[in-house]
């Protein structure tokens, strides 16, 4: 039995634990709400995290990960944490939690099936996810600062593009904007 098979088998268990541990990083009064309120519109934070984790895990199980998909799920979660007064390490720490959970859950299997090398590979993969999460976190923060510092300008931002339309191609401006904001 490969490691991925073991993971598949315990998928629900692992995701549930992962979710619980993340939710535990919120104050208790909040975490109960995040866990219990199942309506995704009344509880976007809880719902986004729970869907995101499932999505990320599904991708991990595949032989070939769809990087864009994984990024999307991580993005959804990190985007929220990026405005919730977490510092960067706290905001992306949720990825590393998965390592611990998998170790707790699968140590016996790994010893039994002799697939420690697979576990190491998987852990490297999770580290990669953390790096992706970090990139996303930084993008989100940059976005916030961009919106913040540009609000005065922002009232005119689209006009800028538009005025330029008369003269040049629009994507030029977009490039310029990227140049100055990054």
């Amino acid at each position, binding site marked *: 039995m490969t490691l991925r098979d073991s993971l598949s088998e315990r998928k629900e268990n692992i995701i549930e634990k992962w979710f619980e541990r993340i939710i535990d990083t919120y104050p208790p009064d909040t975490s109960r709400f995040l866990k219990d309120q199942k309506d995704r519109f009344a509880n976007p934070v809880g719902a986004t995290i729970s869907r995101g984790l499932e999505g990320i895990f599904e991708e991990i199980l595949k032989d070939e990960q769809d990087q864009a998909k994984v990024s999307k799920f991580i993005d959804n979660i990190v985007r929220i944490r990026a405005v919730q007064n977490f510092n960067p390490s706290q905001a992306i720490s949720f990825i590393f939690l998965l390592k611990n959970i998998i170790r707790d859950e699968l140590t016996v299997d790994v010893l039994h099936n002799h697939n420690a090398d697979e576990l190491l590979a998987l852990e490297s993969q999770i580290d990669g996810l953390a790096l992706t999460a970090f990139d996303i976190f930084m993008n989100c923060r940059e976005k916030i600062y961009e919106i913040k510092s540009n609000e005065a300008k922002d009232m005119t931002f*689209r006009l800028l593009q538009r005025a330029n339309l008369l003269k040049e191609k629009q994507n030029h401006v977009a490039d310029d904007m990227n140049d100055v904001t990054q």
Partner: protein
Amino acid sequence: MAKLPKPEELAKVDFKPPKTGWMDTPANLKPGTFCWGAKAKNLQVVDFPNARDWNPTEDDWKLPKEWEGTVLEAMADRLSKYRSFKLFLDICVRCGACADKCHFFIGTGDPKNMPVLRTELLRSVYKKYFTNSGKVLGKLGGARELTYDVLKEWWYYFYQCTECRRCSVFCPYGIDTAEITLMAREFMNLLGLNTDWISGPVSNCYTKGNHLGLEPHTITSSVEFFLDDIETITGIKVEPTFNRKGAEILFVTPSGDLFADPGTYTAMGYLMLFHELGLDYTWSTYASEGGNFGFFTSNEMAKRLHYKIYAEAKRLGVKYIIGGECGHMWRLIHQYLDTWHGPADFLEVPRSPVTGTVFENACSTKMVHVTEFTADLIKNGKLTLDPSRNDHLKLTYHDSCNTARGMGLLEEPRYVIRNVCNHFYEMPENTIREKTFCCGSGTGLNASENMELRMQGGLPRANAVKHVHEKYGVNMLANICAIDRATLKASMDYWVPAVGVTGVHELVGNAMVMTGEKERTQDLRLEPLPGEEGNE
């Protein structure tokens, strides 16, 4: 080697849950969640007390002497003046039905953002000084003294409430946190504890007639700019009038529409519509603001700012007033204006000169909402519309809190939208109409220094937009509020970048076929119309 923290530990650092009860947990002003303090000069303009420059992050807030007395005196006064205030402080049973209804609680997870607890911040002080049980039982009875920390907590959390009234919909007694927040802000304003973003517009609006501080010639030059664009788009020269005596109708709209995108496109929509109808109407540079940031400071200031609407209608001798797309402007016009400055017996019951419809529902206030006016036009077939010009848009509609829960204007804008656009998709039922989620930045919280708070508060709304974006490909969010137009743009930019923001009358301006117009190739944003993309 030093021991490195485990991920679990790391995740918990600095986010310790309050071990103490809420009463003993002072507010911690987190960066990005509050606005700068009010500047002295802006408070002086409107004679607000304790005008001074101050910084909320410093320990000393430069309060006047014996400020506790000032607050308690004001509280006694308001208790005797507002049944809502007294009743709502007395009858809450803390059932918790409101707890998870607040967009700030949902987004921040901060327990003090639960409406019940937000009110409790003030209720506890009320109990201590105004009820026997509180005096006798003290903390056990939920009472506590008014201290510096309590005041700071008030400032922090009552400027984290957008008075959206969503909690009030779910409360079995109709307890409206907005009523509590309004009072709390009144008390704080007696101590000079306002924010820069509110006091600036208030002072502008008082002297110059509008929040942005547009002077008369600035307004005309700005509108002229729109007229140039309208001519470019349609080939039609629109010629509106300003401060014209003897016009039949006065038109009042939030000043954001005159100077900030995408509100400016909505303003172009009004100009085009009224021109096409040949409406005998005028703009005013004096009554050039429908919104009222005074409402975010005190009832008295709100009344002072809204004076100019009727005064100007009287001076110009118009018959009635049409009001533009604005949220809290309409809560005030609907629920306060007539009481403050009525009876408006010098005006006539509004009657559409185009359709002959008499707006009986506005027979006392004599103010018609522009979407009521336009819906009536469309129903009577007075407009030639080509909704396919909006075919590049897949729309959803955001009900503004104030028009939804303080008025009930739900169907009129939808009717207009359905007639000017072919692709309209509602957001989930729990998030629209009377249950609509706030944009997250109402009541003067739309500054840039509190961006993190705005994003957290805006999450529930954005999340619902994201849903229809993913499900139906929605790419445009329509609304009828200037604050929405200004703030949802930032919120969409962060949460659902593919979705733009528009006013309803921008859509009308696009779809309306005007008499004698040239073939249109551009929309009001000067972007190519669907089918015209290649002709650039």
